[in-house]
């Protein structure tokens, strides 16, 4: 039972991440390889605000969103001058840079030692410690964020993003500013990831930089590409598929040492097969360019 609750919590966290990334990848059509950056900044900011500044959970999360939004602005402004391959490479560069900072700024992040003993969220005097309680808080945040994102997906802003994605020159010719619209999308995407980061940190109560590596960014992109981008169902399908797949392997009785590599191999193979047979993802409509 606990095992199932744990899975549901992880699915909740990853759904927040992929719905946010969807705005950039699916609507904006930009392959970003630095989503784990904002996930990580969110986790660290929330942790430090709670532990060093003694803020309660909710104010800490709100401030985390703000801080990560500013970081996303700083990263996005230069990165969004690029398209296609160059955008991928530049976001990858930022991913490597931020990881290096998290890893080596020992005074702030304790670097490779990580931060243990992160307090559980306390809201209105009630502490969320058990798994069912945690499930409730994660899914509440998920629903809130999903509602906000769905409204954005459906809004004129979402349509303008899709227009820019399909043909930037024509969309710009209709008065849409790529600089502004992509930047908004990038910042919103980063902000939502930071919430996932805060939830993750307080859930596992220990964080270190290795949770927010390039591999994690690649994984997040894979989740989205497998599920399908540019709509509401894709991120859900992708997350469920990618989180449950390794668990299925465990049930097949594969030893843990092998399972980790076997799981990764399946991810890799899935990506290749997807590009051959369904480049738009399992439940997607829009095909990656």
């Amino acid at each position: 039972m606990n095992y199932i609750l744990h899975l549901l919590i992880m699915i909740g966290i990853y759904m927040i991440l992929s719905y946010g990334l969807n705005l950039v990848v699916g609507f904006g059509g930009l392959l970003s390889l630095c989503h784990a950056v904002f996930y990580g900044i969110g986790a660290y900011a929330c942790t430090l605000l709670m532990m060093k500044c003694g803020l309660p959970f909710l104010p800490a999360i709100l401030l985390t969103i703000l801080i990560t939004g500013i970081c996303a602005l700083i990263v996005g402004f230069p990165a969004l001058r690029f398209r296609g391959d160059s955008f991928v490479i530049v976001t990858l560069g930022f991913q490597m840079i931020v990881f290096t900072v998290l890893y080596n700024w020992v005074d702030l992040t304790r670097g490779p030692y990580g931060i243990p003993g992160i307090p559980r969220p306390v809201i209105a005097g009630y502490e969320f410690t058990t798994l069912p309680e945690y499930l409730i808080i994660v899914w509440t945040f998920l629903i809130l964020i999903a509602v906000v994102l769905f409204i954005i997906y459906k809004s004129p802003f979402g349509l303008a993003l899709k227009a820019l994605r399909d043909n930037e020159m024509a969309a710009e010719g209709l008065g849409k500013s790529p600089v502004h619209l992509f930047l908004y999308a990038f910042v919103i995407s980063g902000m939502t990831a930071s919430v996932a980061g805060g939830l993750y940190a307080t859930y596992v109560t220990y964080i270190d930089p290795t949770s927010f590596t390039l591999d994690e960014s690649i994984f997040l992109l894979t989740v989205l590409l497998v599920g399908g981008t540019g709509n509401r169902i894709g991120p859900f399908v992708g997350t469920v598929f990618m989180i449950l797949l390794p668990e299925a392997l465990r049930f097949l009785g594969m030893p843990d040492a092998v399972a980790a590599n076997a799981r990764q191999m399946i991810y890799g193979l899935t990506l290749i097969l997807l590009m051959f047979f369904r480049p738009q993802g399992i439940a997607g409509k829009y095909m990656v360019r």
Partner: protein
Amino acid sequence: MTLLLQLILNGIVNAAIYSLLAVGFGLVYRSLRFFYIAFGAVYIVASYAVFALANMAGLPLLVSIILGLLIGAISGVVMDKSVYLPLEKRSASTGVLFIASLGIYILVVNLVALFFGNEVKILSMGIEPSFSIGTLVVTRMQVVQFFVGWIVVIGFWFIIRKNNLMKGIWAMGETPDLVVVLGLPYKFMRMLVFALSSVFAGIASLLTALDVGIDPHVGMHALLTGAVAVLVGGVDVYRGWIGGAVLLAVLQSIAVWQFSARWNDLITFGILIITLLFRPQGLFSPKRRREER
């Protein structure tokens, strides 16, 4: 001062390896115009092949190395024939190729890890003899790295300038259709690009692995080093690839001297982003890249 000189010396030796990586990555990126992540997978294949042949099957090292490079080259060509070429025939976009390439990388790395384990494998035993030049110390392996690396890279430079097929490969990156129109052997050239790229990756990989060993996950770093060198130096000129590699290696050495090796990635990718922002055609490329829209 001695320390700085020593670090610069190390930098020049590293530059040889970085140049190999840059040429390996650049060949594919320049002629086929997609971000070849699986280069990181090809990189580890050669070393693991040598490890299997020499350390496990007990073949002589030199024979193993030759076979290892061959296996690496074949793996590169097989990847192309099985994935990229069929995708290209469906006129897949660069994004699709990039993701498929990422898939190959993940698949191969973990396949290797499944067979050989995730830990570091040592290819050569014993302590490396070293020489001293004045106050500076050089290991035998560094001497090998320096000479092999630079001879291969500079030798290839001459081949590129003289050989017509190589000129054809160079033209392929600008006008792919032209190659077909001119009746050049497109498929063969493609095969050659992947085989050569793999050999460069293999040489770089072996030079490193014989020194410090190898684990399945170093491929990503090798790929990124090569890619950054090419992009910083300039995609369209061979001397840019080399220039980028040398610049990267020397700057990293200086960074080690000033700060510590832990900040190397910050330097590498900082240079990359700054270059792309302010000189997108690369530092050593004279002409501006075409306006892409």
